């Protein structure tokens, strides 16, 4: 699956409180969560993000709370894939479980800037920066975690296994 989209670029230690602040956690409706996504650090995001845009962060993306509302809010914003230097553990797990691909590329993330255009092959992990010409490769998912991702998430995986 090849995706193309414009980059929303964020820094290190983007925590789940800024991805979706707790004051909006009295609902778990994906669309409503998406309408508040990133609001505390980027008020322009929710109103301007386009279907297919790509979110890119630095180190430890998604740290903090286990709230699955965070990857759900990103996915419901129309973001099909998140790329970061590294992901916090629970966020990483949640992303895979809800079928939001997460690609870890270490320091190569420094070569991706706001508004760059990327082409991403989620199955191979190949990322092309169409703006600069750079090509990166994400760390592959281990073992059956790849199968969960390919099934589209944990629930589909469990249903298929039955």
């Amino acid at each position, binding site marked *: 699956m090849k995706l193309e989209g414009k980059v929303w670029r964020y820094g290190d230690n983007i925590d789940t*409180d800024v991805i979706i*602040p707790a004051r909006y956690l009295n609902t778990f409706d994906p669309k409503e969560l998406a309408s508040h996504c990133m609001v505390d650090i980027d008020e322009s995001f929710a109103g301007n993000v386009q279907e297919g845009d790509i979110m890119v962060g630095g180190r*430890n993306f998604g740290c903090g709370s*286990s709230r699955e509302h965070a*990857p759900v809010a990103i996915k419901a914003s129309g973001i099909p894939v998140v790329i970061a230097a590294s992901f916090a553990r*629970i966020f990483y797990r949640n992303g895979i479980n809800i079928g939001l691909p997460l690609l870890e590329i270490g320091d190569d993330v420094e070569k991706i800037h706001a508004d760059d255009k990327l082409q991403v092959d989620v199955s191979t992990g190949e990322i092309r920066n169409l703006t600069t010409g750079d090509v990166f490769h994400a760390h592959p998912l*281990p073992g059956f975690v790849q199968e969960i991702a390919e099934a589209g998430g*944990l629930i589909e995986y469990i249903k298929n296994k039955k």
Partner: protein
Amino acid sequence: MGMTMSEKILAKHAGLERVEAGQLVTCKLDMVLANDITAPPSIKIFESIGRPVFDNEKIALVPDHFQPAKDIKSAELAKIVRDFAHKHKIVHYFEQGRVGIEHVILPEKGIVAPGMLTIGADSHTCTYGAVNGFATGVGSTDLGAAMATGEAWFKVPQAIKVELSGKKPAGISGKDVILTLIGMIGVDGALYKSLEFAGDGVKSLTMTDRLTISNMAIEAGGKAGIFPYDEITAAYVKDRVKKPFEPVAADDDAIYCQVVEINLSELKPVVAFPHLPGNTKRVEDIKEPIAIQQVIIGSCTNGRLEDLQIAAEVFKGHKVADGVRCIVIPGSPAVYKEAMKRGYIDIFIDADCAVSTPTCGPCLGGYMGIMAAGEKCVSTTNRNFRGRMGHVDSEVYLAGPHVAAASAILGRIATAEEVQ
């Protein structure tokens, strides 16, 4: 080759003789936990699978975050959890009046025990490492699936050994230990790894200290933060845990990816500056006074009886400074009642503190102490992210109960020693 505490617990629950770091395993779970924010989406996931609950005694549902309900939507969330608990006869469901903060009441009631494997749809589930269990936070999909299957997959983590030496001095608590550690290794210093505590220093840490330390393993990115089982653990679980349990000890030749040494006797009172728990500074190194408007004493990190005792001893005979509001939140009904019996609540009320029913409330910016723009708070909670406790331009300074109480009295960040 030997195994760490994490490896032993995961191996046993995977039905394997041994496992090693990096291995993917599927484990049987002893306890799965969710709260009023994370249970509703978990229940939706659970219902989509179409199976019964795997065991109604191994699910804990604790409506503590926005409860007693702060608004209509939060009341609806609590109702989803309540109806589910009744329908599936969930044994460890806690209604208001019996409910406390999840990570305070599960150890307090002996629902988690040494050697147990717990997942919780709350990142601070790692708290139970203090009683020698492997416990880690997950999201609602993992939790919903686990309520049906009783299983979860894990990547066996590499372990960082935290070698504690010396003896904890007076005026220092577990909060100073963990904030110092996160300051040393960073907020992603233990990413994907477990923190395993060891060394002679462990025995000078009370169970309350250990619960605070394990609680914040996640603030270093850790998957778990586990203490060895000793006399202090045994005394704590003795009259609480009703089921048989098997403690684990690390083998002498267990493999660690890193060793971090902390001499407890050298620790000083610290605070973590905004906006990361790893921005740790000694209070004595703060040159310009930092005026504050709010103090929170409570949470799953520091809402236990010993925390309130420390705060009460500092507050005795003093008042909260003008221009400061101090909110004290006992972590459970049992903590509240005992604090009342011992006179701590009298001390707090006489000092002009507001005392609340148990709730997570302000820690995550829910309610019961939300800040306006420009305000600063010293808080015994666990996160000081931007906007965590209210307005995006408010600031949270994390500290232990000594510093929190002293700061409330002096109206600026201060140590208990500075209070006459």
